């Protein structure tokens, strides 16, 4: 069933291009047949034009030569010469056409697949991403797609070509002499069956070699990440020994594989060549007995030679085909995951910023309950502080506002309208979020901050936001200032710098709702104070959420929500909360004891 599915997907990835692949296969097939033209031409020329044999022993070429006067051909040997070049040219054109067509079409297929995967990844729900194994996904998007591309570009055409040649020679040989055909062609089923048997047999060897290689890679990778530990404990010799062992093991199991391969190729060569011996032997006998003519025998011998190569290639193609099927299944695994519903036909409007949670609960797919019946309401323009221990559900709660997750029960209203009514794009453009672990893209700092503004941002807006986020000074100290590249190909920013760039990115949006998810944690006290001031300045007329551990931050909020184990245990203004018995008051007392 799985095999069939992947066949379907493979077919679909070629969709719209099946004709181009068929043409490529046909061209290659004709090209392979045309490869027999030069020897035939030469033989006919030598035998009948230069020599004195009758043209009739060369059926095809002879009839072409018959169009000319033989004496003219004899005088002008460049004519058959040109014909030779012409046939090579024709063959070359076909080989080129086939190769180019297959390669460019497979590129097109792989591009489609890549685009599809990329779009799909972007549209997968947040819940998928939060638990995804990213290394594995990356592997699927890159090397698995490439495996499929190679299969389409090279092997598919080879398989097609083999089929074409096999069928051609079957037709030709059976029409010419069925008896000899039965003798000449057992190699085809033999070879296919033995390839399948063989590759079934060495699967485990293959897997062992692959795993040994992966183990070696893992060791090097871990070694490189843990290099400080290795060095500090002086364990270089120990590591080298471990590496040596795995290196040796990989070599050993791969040699097993090579031994199998030698056996396979040797036996398949013996089989193929024996087939030639059989045809020559039996053919000679029958010719001498007069059952068949010499011409028929020669035709059969060349037919056998012609199909031997593609039939022998079959084994290799089978391996690659297996790999391609595994790859396409892995790709399919991503594409099968359902995309997030972006509520495309939803409402698009300017948000004011009043928010109401009505008995909102949320649990993960595995049943783990994160939020329990939370209700609160704030008017537009409120600064909301959120407090609670790690794992109390703060981040999840604010993620619900921009529709990253969907509540399991209860409802959320923005400006009195259920968030299900909004188009998600509209919602997210107006809810600026700074995540706990901010991510910057591999482009310039300026572009990173300007991302929410689209392509036509103004420099002034960006510098202003950067100043507010207290990162402007650090940026201009970089050699290339705002043009400094971030990430692998550029500078590595510290955690605090990243947070501030992300804050600038949020400030630049001037969105009516802003969420700062513990975004100041990596900043020192002084910077923290400055950034907070800037946020307060920007908070005028906006609804702002601040998740923080620090009382000083929360004291400036209009409304404070206190979460614990997924429940809202206290809410109110700062003054209300310190008047109330509870966690907040105890915390505040601790604070005042300091002063």
């Amino acid at each position, binding site marked *: 069933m799985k095999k069939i599915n992947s066949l379907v997907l493979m077919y679909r990835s070629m969709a719209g291009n099946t004709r181009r692949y068929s043409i490529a296969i046909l061209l290659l097939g004709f090209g392979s047949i045309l490869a027999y033209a030069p020897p035939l031409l030469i033989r006919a020329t030598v035998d009948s034009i230069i020599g004195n044999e009758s043209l009739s022993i060369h059926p095809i070429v002879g009839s072409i030569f018959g169009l000319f006067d033989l004496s003219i051909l004899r005088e002008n040997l460049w004519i058959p*010469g040109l014909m030779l070049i012409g046939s090579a040219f024709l063959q070359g054109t076909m080989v080129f056409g086939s190769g180019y067509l297959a390669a460019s079409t497979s590129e097109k297929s792989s591009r489609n697949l890549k685009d599809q995967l990329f779009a799909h990844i972007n549209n997968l729900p947040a819940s998928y991403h939060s638990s995804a194994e*990213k290394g594995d996904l990356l592997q699927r998007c890159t090397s698995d797609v490439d495996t499929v591309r190679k299969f389409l570009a090279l092997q598919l055409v080879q398989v097609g070509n083999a089929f074409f040649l096999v069928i051609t020679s079957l037709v030709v040989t059976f029409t010419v002499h069925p008896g000899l055909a039965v003798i000449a062609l057992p190699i085809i089923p033999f070879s296919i069956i033995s390839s399948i048997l063989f590759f079934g047999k060495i699967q485990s060897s293959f897997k062992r070699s692959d795993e040994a290689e992966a183990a070696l890679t893992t060791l090097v990778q*871990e070694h490189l990440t843990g290099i400080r530990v290795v060095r*500090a404990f002086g364990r270089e010799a120990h590591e080298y020994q471990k*590496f040596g062992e795995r290196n040796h093991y990989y070599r050993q199991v791969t040699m097993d594989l090579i031994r199998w391969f*030698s056996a396979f190729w040797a036996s398949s060569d013996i089989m193929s060549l024996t087939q030639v*011996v059989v045809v020559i032997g039996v053919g000679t006998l029958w010719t001498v007995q007069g059952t068949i003519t010499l011409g028929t025998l020669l035709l059969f*011998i060349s037919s056998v030679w012609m199909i031997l190569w593609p039939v022998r290639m079959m084994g290799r193609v089978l391996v690659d085909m297996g790999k391609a099927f595994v790859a396409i299944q892995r790709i399919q695994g991503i594409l099968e995951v359902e995309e997030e519903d972006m509520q495309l036909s939803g409402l698009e409007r300017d948000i004011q910023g009043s928010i109401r949670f009505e008995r909102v609960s949320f649990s993960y797919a595995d049943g783990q309950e994160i939020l329990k019946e939370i209700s609160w309401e704030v008017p537009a323009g409120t600064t909301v502080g959120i407090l609670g221990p790690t794992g109390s559900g703060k981040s999840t709660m604010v993620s619900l506002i921009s529709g990253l997750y969907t509540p399991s029960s209860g409802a959320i209203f923005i400006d009195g309208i259920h968030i299900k009514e909004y188009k998600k794009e509209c919602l*997210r453009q107006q809810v600026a979020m700074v995540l706990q672990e901010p991510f910057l893209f591999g482009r310039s700092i300026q572009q990173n901050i300007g991302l929410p503004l689209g392509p036509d941002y103004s420099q002034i807006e960006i510098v202003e936001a950067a100043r507010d986020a207290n990162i402007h000074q650090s940026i201009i100290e970089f050699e290339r200032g705002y043009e400094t590249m971030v990430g692998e190909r550029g500078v590595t920013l510290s955690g605090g710098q990243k947070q501030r760039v992300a804050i600038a990115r949020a400030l630049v949006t001037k969105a009516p709702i802003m969420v700062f998810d513990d975004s100041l944690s990596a900043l020192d006290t002084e910077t923290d104070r400055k950034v907070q001031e800037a946020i307060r300045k920007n908070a005028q007329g906006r609804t702002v959420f601040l998740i923080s551990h620090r009382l000083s931050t929360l004291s400036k909020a209009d409304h404070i929500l206190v979460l614990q184990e997924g429940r809202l245990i206290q809410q109110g203004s700062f003054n209300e909360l310190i008047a109330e018995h509870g966690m907040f008051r105890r915390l505040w007392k601790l604070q005042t004891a300091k002063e």
Partner: protein
Amino acid sequence: MKTKKSFFKNLLPYLKPYWPQTLGLGIVMILVGVIDATFALWTRYAVDTFIVPGTTDGLDIFIYCFLGLVLLQGINVFILIMVAGYLEMALMYDLRNANFAHVQDLELDYFNRTAGGWLLSRITSDIQRIGQTISWGFVDITWGFTTITSISIVMFILNWQLALITLSVVPFLIWVSRYFQNRIFRSQRLVRRTNSRITASYNEALMGAMTTKTLSRENESLKEFKHLSQRMNRMSVISARISALYQPVVMVLGAIGTALALWNGGLRVSLEVLTFGTLAAFLSYTVQLFDPLRELARVFGELQSARAAGERVFTLLDTPVEIIDSPEIIQRYGSVLSPRPEHWPTLRGSIRFENVWFRYNNGEQILENFSLQIPAGQSIALVGATGSGKSTLVNLICRFYEPNEGKIYIDDRDYRDYGLACLHGNLGYVLQSPQLFSGSIEENIRYGKLSATLEEIVQAAKVANAHDFISRLPDGYKTQVGEEGAKLSTGQKQLISFTRAILADPAILILDEATSSIDTESESLIQEAIHKVLLNRTSLIIAHRLSTIKDADRILVIEKGKVIEDGNHQELLSFGGHYYRLYENQYFQEQEEKFIAGAPL
């Protein structure tokens, strides 16, 4: 051109030990080529000997001989693949060992400068490419050259004028091949470069998925990606066109060569300077000449890309080692790869910095004329802002870097005189983010002392407060920790990392305390463990937690590469300076955090 030479020259020492195999492979290859060439003759023999005279006398012998040859060829093929595969594996094995060994010698700073991914692909995929191309390339080249040479020789013997005329296309062929190989190589490079950008895009899409969503950039980023994938498509198609064109061009050139022979040979026959039979034989050889030529061109193209891989590998191998011991010291105490612990002196662990100057390679001056004395057995808490120089001190003591000027003494002897192996053998290091290796918990702890028995390991785990959680795990000490310890919580990893250091029982312990909060239970266990480990041991702690700082015998407040306050907790508090303010701030922050984390309902 110069680099090409250097790659093969570099490679030569790695091939040398395998010359008998290489020679054997060459011989088998020639045999295969010769047998292959005779197959056409067998048909002719059958026609001439049996069919034309109309007899079957000796047909059975003919068939037996033929079958014998087939068997011989099968054996040849078997040997060929075995030996070529052996060479491939041997080359890879040796190159990998050499590279990994060299990596052990490189100074730690190298790994800060060099991306791990870069190093990884040198040791894995690049070396694989070299192994494959060199061994199988050798097979193809031998086969190609054998065939071409033997055919050319036969052609020259048959008729040298005609041979010259036919071979006149070969210079063109070489020129065209070079042209195409260059174009293919260049276009492939562009394709690969674009491809790495595509990979980077996927990586960003995966790592930054949440950010993309919150910025609502799904469509824009897809648009950007499509731009890239379109570019990739364009590049690949250009590359494919060039590659696809190459083979037909060689075919046509070959046909021109054959046509020249046909035309000129025919003239010679009619002028009766050449016999008919010679021309027929000659022509059948010309057809066979051009296939191997094309094959050779392909192999040379592949060698180009192997060369690129090879250059990268040898760049790694040729990276000079900056921190290195003198031969005398290696002689005495061994190198890092073959240490001689039996000769190591026992260190007590006093440390002295004497007028040390240090700056990083990027020119950032950290220490200026820095001096410091730490008696053996003292625990030191290093306190100060990021970039103040705390980590630099630790890096210098570990000799991950060396001072630009001045000296560091351990037990009153220049610490370079101990050699890296001995120094690191006496060090223990607990990292801020605990680093484990895949394998069992037991193996990870044993990393501290390779000869430790299970009893010793359990003992150490008990001291580090790790024993309880370990024995609660279903597989106990045999529990697999997963890649980089992924199956354990941060707190658990922290405890194992402590156990490892305790087992090592080092003269000097370096502790880079974690900043990130972990669950309360592990937290208090770790605090307790730290306390036990520090007792009577020279230790340097990059400290973040007050309890750790208070526990230390001595606190150094570092600012801009200088010790601005030096004393124990009580002394510094009553001094009322930097430390006092820091302590106050920190105290309340910690109280708050503790409170929030452990607040009762």
